[in-house]
């Protein structure tokens, strides 16, 4: 049969892994065995039931639908895959993501997107404390609120929050950009509100579009970033460290 006549549906019936029937290791090994250009581009994971490390370390551009809630580190180190969690995620979802995307339909626990270098993490519910801690280039969009100490030591990338932020937002931040639409309980050391210039409005619109957010205008957000007073040690700032 000529390749041109292959229907998209027929070629892409999802490969289904039921974690009630198979082990997590079998799932992750099968994902790691994917070769570049594989036709197995759609995957479905059933009954995750809070399992740890679901779909970590995937390095091919496949779509993975996880039907239920996951535990620690879902999608960690993701490189190119598009993971959707149809439930909530435990601590460390998308930790150290390199590229691709992770969408969590529910809430995310602590340190979502920690140390992420790239890609897009969308939390459609709320994220807990330390969201985007030490982020290094990842884009994170949270539809709800984020907890305390979020974007702690954030180095680069963008954190967009449609709701409110908890205490000590952006403590010891480097060059990440933080956009918050609601209230911020308090800013951390060296994090300040900054002017929203045209380039930031454009950047934010692009992030909202990529995250599928509609009905929200970039002008509704405030921008926060580094005052850059802690970059070099100054004895007068000793109390701030």
């Amino acid at each position: 049969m000529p390749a041109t006549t292959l229907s998209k549906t027929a070629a892409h019936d999802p490969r289904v892994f039921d974690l009630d029937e198979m082990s997590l290791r079998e799932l992750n090994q099968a994902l790691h065995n994917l070769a570049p250009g594989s036709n197995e581009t759609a995957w479905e994971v059933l009954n995750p039931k809070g399992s740890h490390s679901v779909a970590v370390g995937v390095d091919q551009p496949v779509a993975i639908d996880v039907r239920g809630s996951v535990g620690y580190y879902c999608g960690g180190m993701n490189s190119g895959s598009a993971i959707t969690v149809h439930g909530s995620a435990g601590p460390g979802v998308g930790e150290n993501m390199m590229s691709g995307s992770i969408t969590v339909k529910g809430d995310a626990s602590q340190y979502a997107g920690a140390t992420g270098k790239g890609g897009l993490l969308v939390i459609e519910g709320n994220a807990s404390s330390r969201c985007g801690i030490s982020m290094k280039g990842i884009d994170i969009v949270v539809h709800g609120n984020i907890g305390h100490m979020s974007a702690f030591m954030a180095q680069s990338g963008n954190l967009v929050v449609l709701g409110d932020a908890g205490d000590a937002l952006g403590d010891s931040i480097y060059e990440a950009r933080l956009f918050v639409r609601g209230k911020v309980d308090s800013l951390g050391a060296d994090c300040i509100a900054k002017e929203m210039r045209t380039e930031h409005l454009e950047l934010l619109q692009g992030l909202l579009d990529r995250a599928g957010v509609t009905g929200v205008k970039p002008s509704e957000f405030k921008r926060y970033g580094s005052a850059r007073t802690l970059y070099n040690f100054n004895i007068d700032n000793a109390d701030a460290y």
Partner: protein
Amino acid sequence: MCGIVGLFLKDKALEPQLGAMLSQMLISLSDRGPDSAGIAIYGAPSKNEAKITIQSTKPDRDFRGLEAELANAIGTPVTIAVKSTHAVVRTTPAKIDEARDTIQALRPDIRIMGAGDVVEIYKEVGLPEAVVDRFDVRKMTGTHGIGHTRMATESAVTTMGAHPFSTGADQCLVHNGSLSNHNNVRRELIREGMTFETENDTEVAAAYLSSQMAHGKNLGEALEGTLSDLDGFFTFVVGTKNGFGVVRDPIACKPAVMAETDQYVAFGSEYRALTKLPGIDNARVWEPEPATVYFWEH
């Protein structure tokens, strides 16, 4: 690390399954702490009866003949139900303190796990499943209960170092975390007259709450006090005769998930612990906020 669970039933129809539900929740968190495990179950209250849970490393020697000796010594009927290394002593509520002192006098090697009108406490070294099997926890009935599987950090892996810790009648506590000011708080509580069985930090937290409640605070107020008076990492789950409470320290590193339906309130260190509860797919599931007290009472 450690794993903690709690289950507070609202629907009486689930009470016969409390032990089975709590056991399953605890076993699901075995890899959070393989050192030792324990469970406290709050059973049905009875007007004429209070209980003491006792433990011995030599149950054959220490429990033999104790029933008759104790009844004779306190002049009141006593029953003793032995379960492996533990036994539950039942007698009239008015005699419970005397019974406790007498047990210690008759059998100095016996340790008191806890006492009260309704609580029974079982804890041992080993995996949660082994502990659950040893004490036949799955068959236990009750209104609420808490459990713990331990990865020791602050003190030795011993039966007495396992959780739950009980320091007041029908009060007990499980803890994930570690406290840094427990020696100071212990000294203050000893000055108040409290006694301690171990060097463990969690026992201090339990005793702190008992002390606060002895001073007239309710469970919620006592838990509120931990936020200013205890220093360190903690997620606490606490049981009282008719109540169930949860609090996390302001940093809230130690994980916690809760679920509530019309039938129950449940706590787990992780969502994994909750996945087999009835109606979980439609439950309200949330992460308890840092420095926020949650409690329920019957």
